[in-house]
């Protein structure tokens, strides 16, 4: 569960060592990234998973050389980010980005391709991003989901070895999402390395070989998706059930912890199905029952041991 040892496989992949970044804001300094150490091997697909504000985008920015870390270093394919960028080995979809207007989809991709030493064929980029039919449309007339696909195509323009995708599927519908990940798999099988930041556990679980779990500016867990899912995938059961001590409920099978908030009880479960059956069998007066995923934020608070009351 500790961070992966850097050292093996140097010269390839991504190595982040002791990254730190503090922003000065009017309300005082904010430590966006406190200490990030990670290594991604060539050909891996790695998810950087964390809730909003965990420091994912700042980490991505430093990895790409868009921001200088206050401390620590980034190594991409054996050199600084800038060298990999100039060589066209990096493609990125940045968060909240748009595209230039007053050009067609094809023109924008041709414009970007012209900047690189060995670009991907524009038609191939169009095909991979499923934009072939929209090639002659002006970029300002694309829908949100189509714009996301174009941004993906732009990331592919240099025919990069590493693709860094910051929340790539935000704004995509289910179908676009599915098609997007299918393409990612295709490219991954062709040997490309992917690092994607997301706050969707499902995406990390389904599409990553490995998940880096990030919270409060640190990588708090690093492992295969199923391991991470067990950590953050806990569900809670809520019910209105006056008069039953929390300690009694905490002993139900499948329940990890139980807490009382007025007439409501909150059960954090390792196995919510079993816990629910037991609850119904033993406490017939329980009503207003609600089962839901704990949500990344709550899971992270437990995980990082931050002693704050989690708002309901």
């Amino acid at each position, binding site marked *: 569960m500790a961070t992966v040892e850097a050292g093996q496989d140097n010269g390839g992949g991504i190595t982040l060592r002791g990254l730190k970044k503090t922003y000065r804001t009017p309300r005082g300094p904010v430590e966006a990234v406190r200490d990030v150490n990670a290594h991604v091997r060539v050909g891996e697909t790695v998810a950087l998973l964390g809730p909003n504000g965990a420091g994912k985008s700042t980490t991505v920015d430093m990895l790409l050389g868009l921001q200088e870390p206050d401390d620590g270093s980034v190594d991409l394919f054996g050199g600084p980010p800038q060298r990999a960028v100039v060589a066209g080995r990096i493609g990125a979809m940045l968060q*909240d*980005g748009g595209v*230039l207007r007053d*050009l067609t989809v094809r*023109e924008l991709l041709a*414009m*970007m391709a*012209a*900047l690189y030493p060995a670009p991907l064929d524009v038609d191939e980029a169009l095909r991979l991003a499923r934009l072939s039919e929209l090639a002659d449309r002006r970029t300002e007339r694309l829908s949100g989901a189509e714009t996301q696909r174009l941004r993906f195509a732009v990331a592919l323009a240099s025919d990069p070895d590493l693709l860094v995708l910051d929340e790539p599927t935000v704004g995509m519908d289910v179908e676009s999402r599915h098609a997007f990940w299918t393409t990612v798999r295709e490219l991954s099988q062709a040997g490309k390395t992917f690092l994607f930041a997301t706050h969707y556990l499902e995406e990390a679980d389904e599409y990553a070989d490995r998940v880096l779990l990030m919270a409060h500016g640190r990588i708090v867990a690093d492992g295969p998706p199923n391991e991470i899912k067990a950590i953050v995938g806990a569900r809670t059961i809520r019910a209105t059930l006056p008069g039953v001590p929390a300690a009694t409920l905490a002993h139900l099978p499948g329940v990890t912890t139980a807490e009382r908030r007025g007439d409501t009880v909150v059960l954090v479960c390792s196995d919510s199905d079993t816990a629910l059956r037991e609850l119904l069998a033993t406490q017939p007066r329980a009503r207003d029952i609600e089962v839901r995923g704990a949500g990344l934020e709550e899971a992270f608070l437990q995980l990082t041991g931050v002693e704050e009351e989690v708002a309901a």
Partner: protein
Amino acid sequence: MSDTLAYARYELRRTFRNRRLYILSLAFPLALYYAIATPNRAEHSIGGTGIAAPIYVMVGLTAFGTMNAVVGCGARIAAERAVGWNRQLRLTPLSTRTYFRVKVLTAYVMAVLTIVLLYAAGATLGVRLAAADWLRMTALILIGLAPFAAIGILFGHLLTPDSIGPAIGGTTAFFALLGGVWFPVTHGAMHAVAEGLPSYWLVQAGHVGLGGQGCGAAGWAVVAAWTVACAALARRAYERDTRRV
């Protein structure tokens, strides 16, 4: 160099696709020219400069129109920044130098169009000059525009699309008024201030060969100082600009 050309080609294509912008920026000085110069077309020595009104106003509005065209490139930069495009560009081999070169080139293409249009308008009001004088005047105006290109890029990297319109309008109006675009600024405190402004020398540059007194070393020194200072500030603004906005 080839990436400069490729990138410039698409930049220009984008500029001319945005019809409203370029038609307005060309039509505005043209309309002003006729509005000011037509009633004064018989004036042979405007403000005692020895320059006839149609030429004086033509040069003044050329200065104003080109100034606007060049500073206006900042608005396009601000719009690109607003969608994070500058961050995307930082992930390409496109160098800062090439990026600036292309922005300046695009701005100058708009400036040259403005010049051609206003010269043609001048000719319709009887402005006649030797070919060498047209060329000399044009060359000097283009050099005199350098600080304004830097100001445009600086604004583009400092301001948002919302705030840049008024900033550009106010700045060019101020520079135009004190620079003697509308009426000659020949003496007094205004003249003393004007001599420190690049717009004054832009207008003077346009007057060389038309009976005006020209720029002189002091004038070019002012232009050079503004160019260097604004370019340095623009570069700094560009380099800090990769942060998320």
